[in-house]
């Protein structure tokens, strides 16, 4: 009888100890360590990498290397487009006016390529919907010594291929 009571007491203490270890979050066992890691997440400093996917390096918009050197020339080629007005006196006038518009477009494209474009944008969103979208671009430049390479006129559309040769001397003065 004494032995049976002793065995029951030992069993109950062992079961209590095991139950305490199971619910103790800061115990010394390996299971308790994993629960600790998951309960307090930390920010990972390394980016998540997918297998066999190269990481993309940020693009340097202003390279230190000079595009124009004393021995090198840069050729910029564009195609300007222009249309003739709806009312013209003759096909010749339509051609002349469309060509003038195409040349202006060519000048604009050259200026955009060489000097750059200023872009401004504004979107108005109300109730999760775009109410008004507004994009404005502008170019301001001085273009000289642009050459007309080829002119085509078809169905009221005039296309002018133009080019400009940039050399170091043009910008060094």
């Amino acid at each position, binding site marked *: 009888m004494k032995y049976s009571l002793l065995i029951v007491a030992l069993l109950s203490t062992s079961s209590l100890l095991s139950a305490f270890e199971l619910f103790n979050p800061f115990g010394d066992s390996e299971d308790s360590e994993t629960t600790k890691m998951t309960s307090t997440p930390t920010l990972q400093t390394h980016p998540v990498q997918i297998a066999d996917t190269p990481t993309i390096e940020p693009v340097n918009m202003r390279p230190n290397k000079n595009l124009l050197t004393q021995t090198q020339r840069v050729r910029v080629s564009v195609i300007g487009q222009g249309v003739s007005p709806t009312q013209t006196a003759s096909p010749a006038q339509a051609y002349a006016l469309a060509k003038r518009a195409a040349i202006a477009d060519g000048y604009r494209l050259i200026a955009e390529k060489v000097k750059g474009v200023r872009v401004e944008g504004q979107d108005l969103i109300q109730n999760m919907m775009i109410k008004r979208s507004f994009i404005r671009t502008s170019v*301001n430049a001085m273009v000289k010594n642009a050459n007309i390479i080829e002119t085509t006129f078809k169905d009221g559309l005039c296309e002018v291929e133009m080019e400009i040769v940039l050399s170091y001397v043009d910008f060094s003065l």
Partner: protein
Amino acid sequence: MRSRDGNRTFLRRFLFITLLSSLALNASEYLISYRYVVKDSALYNETLYVSKAMKKCDGKEQESIFLNTDKEKSLKKIITNNFEEFIYYIHKLGLHINHKDKTINLEHTSTSILTLKTTCFKVDINDNLAKITPLK
């Protein structure tokens, strides 16, 4: 009373001055400006102003253009007769471009203005040719 030799020298001087002034009058200076507007890829407006300079211009001579005069003495008429050639030459000289684009609710409009700012040109008009030289 003047001697005969004195009159002769006076006549020579007068003729020399007359010749010089006539040569100088032939080479005159003009102010020219040009501007055209292109709206939505179509030519909208074009202006070319030519006027005689009221005072002497300064600057170095640049590349010249030679236009046929067809016995015309007026620069405006000479330019009108050779308009395309002259406009192409002005383009080569250099134009200032001011372009503006607007896209409102995906509807696109554009305006380009090309301008030659008022520039002084030295003009020599002869019987058959007019030499036009910009001064910068």
